[in-house]
């Protein structure tokens, strides 16, 4: 049994409004990250000075910037994992480790950006990939050939799956449509007032074939944060603690090159999922809902397969016919996800999972939700998965 199993919990969550357009100074993400931290600390019933661990998101505000503003005078622990969108999950592992081992008592995990009003992910240039894990491969062997954006390199894998297993555009569309339905039940979702059906999905313009516009996540301005502590300390705090039952990370090999892998469908989460389920002592069938990091629609199908919710190759059928909608076999991205709520780095997936397990998800509440998973997906398929329970 792992020393971390069911020992740490999420005790506070916070977020800013999610926007597309703001008057804020967008040159740094610090403001939205601080606002989210403030809200999460308050939600937990703590004060800023109680925080003694900060786990910043790679490439965003560093711990010092956050600490000097929040007034954290005794910063006992800080760490960052270079795994892009798998960062929140990596930080959950790190936070659980830190509080259980006694390196820190109350650890905060922030993440936010001006992903719409500042510079956008679609506009990444060589200077940005230099900062990514795997960036040198992209810089030297992808960019010169016009392969410059995530929508392009992930579309290669989607096409491969379509050729190999007969996955159809309508299967990708089923993910987009399901998540948009969920967004309509979520007051925070940017696309709550914009219904989408399959015809609307198929009519959206092609970006990087087979990816259309509605296969792509929604660049947004906003931040989220959450606080992790031990089960024991959680007893004295304001909220029902949400337990971290299992947590694990993984990386595909080679991590820096998505296109030459022997098995092109193998992701970090392929290896991480059995580790996290093992730690939690559960199986895929025990999961009541899944918040799956969704940069693009196919990456949802791929992760569902690789985690083991269905066989590899059958993910298209799994998501069709409402399979991942509320009331379906496995509700996925109940907030609308990065596709239809907002792209807030997958931090919003943790906020949603906690809301579901607290029973606070309003119209989109999964009935009797007891166990949920949250995945992260970064760079060229780095993975993280948390099993959360109440």
């Amino acid at each position: 049994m792992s020393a971390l199993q069911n020992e740490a919990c999420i005790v506070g969550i916070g977020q800013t409004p999610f926007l597309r357009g703001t008057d804020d100074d967008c040159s740094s993400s610090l403001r939205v990250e601080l606002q989210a931290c403030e809200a999460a600390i308050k939600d937990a019933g703590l004060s800023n000075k109680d925080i003694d661990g900060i786990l910043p998101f790679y490439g965003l505000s560093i711990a010092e910037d956050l600490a000097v503003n929040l007034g954290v005078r005794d910063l006992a622990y800080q760490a960052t994992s270079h795994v892009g969108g798998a960062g929140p999950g990596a930080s959950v592992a790190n936070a659980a480790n830190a509080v259980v081992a006694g390196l820190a008592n109350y650890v905060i995990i922030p993440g936010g950006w001006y992903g719409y009003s500042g510079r956008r992910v679609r506009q990444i240039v060589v200077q940005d990939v230099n900062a990514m894990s795997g960036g040198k491969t992209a810089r030297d062997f992808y960019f010169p050939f016009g392969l410059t954006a995530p929508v392009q390199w992930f579309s290669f894998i989607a096409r491969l799956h379509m050729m190999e297993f007969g996955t159809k555009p309508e299967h990708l569309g089923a993910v987009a449509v399901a998540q948009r339905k969920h967004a309509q039940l979520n007051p925070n979702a940017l696309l709550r007032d914009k219904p989408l059906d399959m015809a609307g999905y198929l009519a959206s313009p092609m970006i990087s074939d087979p990816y259309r516009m509605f296969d792509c996540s929604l660049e947004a301005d906003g931040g989220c944060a959450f606080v992790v502590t031990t089960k024991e300390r959680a007893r004295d705090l304001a909220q029902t603690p949400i337990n971290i039952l299992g947590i694990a990370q993984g990386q595909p090999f080679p991590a820096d090159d998505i296109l030459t892998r022997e098995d092109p469908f193998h992701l970090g989460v392929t290896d991480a999922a059995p580790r996290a389920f093992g730690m939690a002592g559960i199986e895929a069938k025990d999961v009541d809902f899944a918040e799956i990091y969704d940069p693009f629609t196919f990456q949802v199908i791929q992760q569902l397969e690789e985690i083991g919710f269905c066989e590899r190759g059958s993910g298209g059928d799994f998501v069709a016919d409402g399979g991942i909608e509320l009331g379906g076999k496995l509700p996925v991205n109940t907030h609308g996800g990065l596709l239809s709520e907002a792209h807030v780095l997958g931090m919003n997936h943790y906020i949603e999972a906690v809301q579901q397990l607290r029973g606070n998800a309003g119209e989109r509440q999964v009935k009797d939700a007891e166990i949920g998973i949250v995945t992260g997906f970064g760079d060229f398929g780095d993975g993280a998965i948390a099993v959360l329970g109440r």
Partner: protein
Amino acid sequence: MTSTDTTTAGKETSKPTPQMEGTTKEFYDFCQKKELRFQCCSNCKQWRHVPRLMCAECGSWEWQWLRSSGRGKVFTWTVVERPMHPDFVEDVPYAPVVIELEEGVRMVSWLSNCDPHEITRGMPVEVEFDAVSEQLTLPKFKRRNNPL
């Protein structure tokens, strides 16, 4: 890290270029000589791309740059209908492809003599060299109409 070079066609380009250092420079220096070469482990004879300092199979630090036949097949591709990077606006629609070479290695490249919408899986291709500037020649591929 974009450079402003003059292409052989005499047209200004600012397309992104590889950082010419270490094994990346070695790879592209061969392309400059119109040779497509990949690392092959001196110990276990495993071919590899992208270039590495060590063989991931056996741990050897020794390699040779062996010449590829330049022939391969389309493994997967995308058709970029909407440009993301400002330097590729004029190229749309274009198709970055992944080529699987006869030696077993895969590489990202570009298919030049084929309508992006006509690309098929397994389409036979062969390398051709595009001198995009005085300093850089890119290995691109063309469709083989009469595959042997």
